[in-house]
């Protein structure tokens, strides 16, 4: 009795209390950075208010327009390739033990390899044009899409698969009506992680390959030790990544619109 009455209150309470420590730590960090920045003792630590001012300028003065367009195009093409090809490869690995045995090692290697080390190789292959940056985005993001797809597809309940077979469901029908539905949370998580990694790949590519896009701004401000501007761009990139991941999280369920529990 007391359990059922106190639980909702407690949950609301813990939820509110969960945000408080974060706000406290954020305030402390910002105040400390501001104070340290004001002393001017470290070039690496500009005052937070300066960063905020540069961030405001960045958004309003048009510096961002061209780099953002370049970056988003690269990211969009790269992620489309990663999610498309990654899903197809993941499905094949999830459905066929043979394909899984053939590719598993390479996918695991791709998951953990320092992709950044392959950028010079990509430059040899594709030159310094947008193809190399797109390839970097793909190499950063495709593995997690493959792994999540294949493990999601394999998780289907054997009893449900047997039931479907008994009722004469075709292989394609089993994939569509059971396997993909059961894998949906994994597929969505793969896309979310893929987008986050894709943004990383994008910036890495832009910094290393050609001074274009948002990564180009990072490089420009970084080499000039213009720390307030550098941090403003980094802040923008982080927010952009969060937005991209958020968009993927919002769009995913619309495409895979199965309500698992109703």
């Amino acid at each position: 009795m007391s359990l059922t009455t106190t639980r909702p209150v407690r949950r609301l309470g813990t939820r509110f209390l969960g945000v408080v420590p974060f706000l406290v730590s954020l305030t402390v960090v910002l105040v400390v950075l501001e104070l340290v920045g004001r002393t001017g003792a470290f070039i690496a630590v500009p005052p937070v208010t300066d960063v905020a001012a540069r961030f405001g300028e960045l958004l309003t003065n048009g510096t961002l327009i061209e780099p953002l367009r370049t970056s988003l195009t690269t990211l969009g093409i790269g992620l489309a390739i990663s999610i498309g090809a990654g899903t197809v490869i993941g499905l094949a690995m999830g459905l066929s033990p043979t394909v899984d045995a053939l590719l598993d090692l390479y996918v695991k290697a791709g998951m953990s390899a320092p992709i950044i080390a392959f950028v010079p190789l990509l430059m040899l292959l594709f030159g310094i044009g947008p193809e190399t940056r797109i390839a970097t985005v793909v190499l950063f993001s495709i593995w997690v899409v493959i792994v999540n797809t294949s493990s999601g597809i394999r998780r289907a309940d054997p009893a449900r698969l047997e039931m479907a077979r008994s009722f004469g469901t075709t292989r394609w029908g089993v994939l569509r009506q059971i396997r993909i539905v059961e894998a949906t949370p994994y597929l969505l998580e793969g896309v979310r992680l893929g987008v986050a990694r894709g943004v990383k790949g994008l910036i890495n590519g832009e910094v290393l390959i050609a001074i274009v896009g948002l990564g180009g701004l990072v490089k420009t401000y970084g080499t000039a030790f213009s720390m307030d501007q550098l941090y403003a761009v980094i802040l923008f990139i982080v927010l952009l990544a969060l937005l991209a991941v958020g968009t993927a999280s919002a769009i995913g369920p619309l495409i895979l619109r199965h309500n698992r529990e109703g």
Partner: protein
Amino acid sequence: MTEFATPAIAIDGVGKDYLDPRGGPPVRALDGVDISIAPGEFVSIIGPSGCGKTTLLKMVDGLIGVDRGEISVLGRRVSGPGPERAVVFQSFALLPWLTVEDNVAFGLKQRGVAAQERRRIAREHLERVGLGGFEDKHPSQLSGGMQQRVGLARALAVNPSVLLMDEPFSAIDAQTRLLLQSDLLRIWADTDMTVLFVTHAMDEAVFLSDRVVIMEPRPGRVREVLPIDLPRPRTEEIRSTARFAELTSAVWDRLRGMIANEDAA
């Protein structure tokens, strides 16, 4: 019940081997099983675990292939699942993301029945199993007994001649189980379905069946076929008759030896 023109289910010298995962010689799961079931008959298979009863049922559905012998349903050799058979599964095997109605309509959908028609048939069978009004619920909102009623309605909806039931009530509490048994008999009596029912509950086998096939393990074989001469229609009262007790203890007599051996082994 000895000779029929065309049995509903003919299991003829059936054997099945399983490979030993540790690389030993193959294990004989089933050997030389002969069972012939007449159209409209209700037959239970009972036996200790490892006697291959569920394997046998899945072979009749065509989910598992035979290694020796042959199985025919309505005179046609089984080579895979077919539209004249439907299975009720031990674990229910419902799809939790679908409504009760869509679960019942699953088999119809696979056969390309139009949406309107599927809906009508699904609702009709939900009424039949006592779940009218639950169409829009999801399986997780139902008790185990009600979930298996959905499983039964899904099988009945495709209008099978042969209903295969794989320990359908074993995951359901004892009281609910008794109700499900009575309801199953009532539903079956209105049809000309043949039922093959795998169970490990002796009273369940006796209450439901025309004949009880008692199997023994290692290798899985038919030990004995026991005719159940209780009158039909059978109601709850029959459980308290002397004949019911006699038949149940006759089944137990056959099984006891095997289970004792099992325990000693």
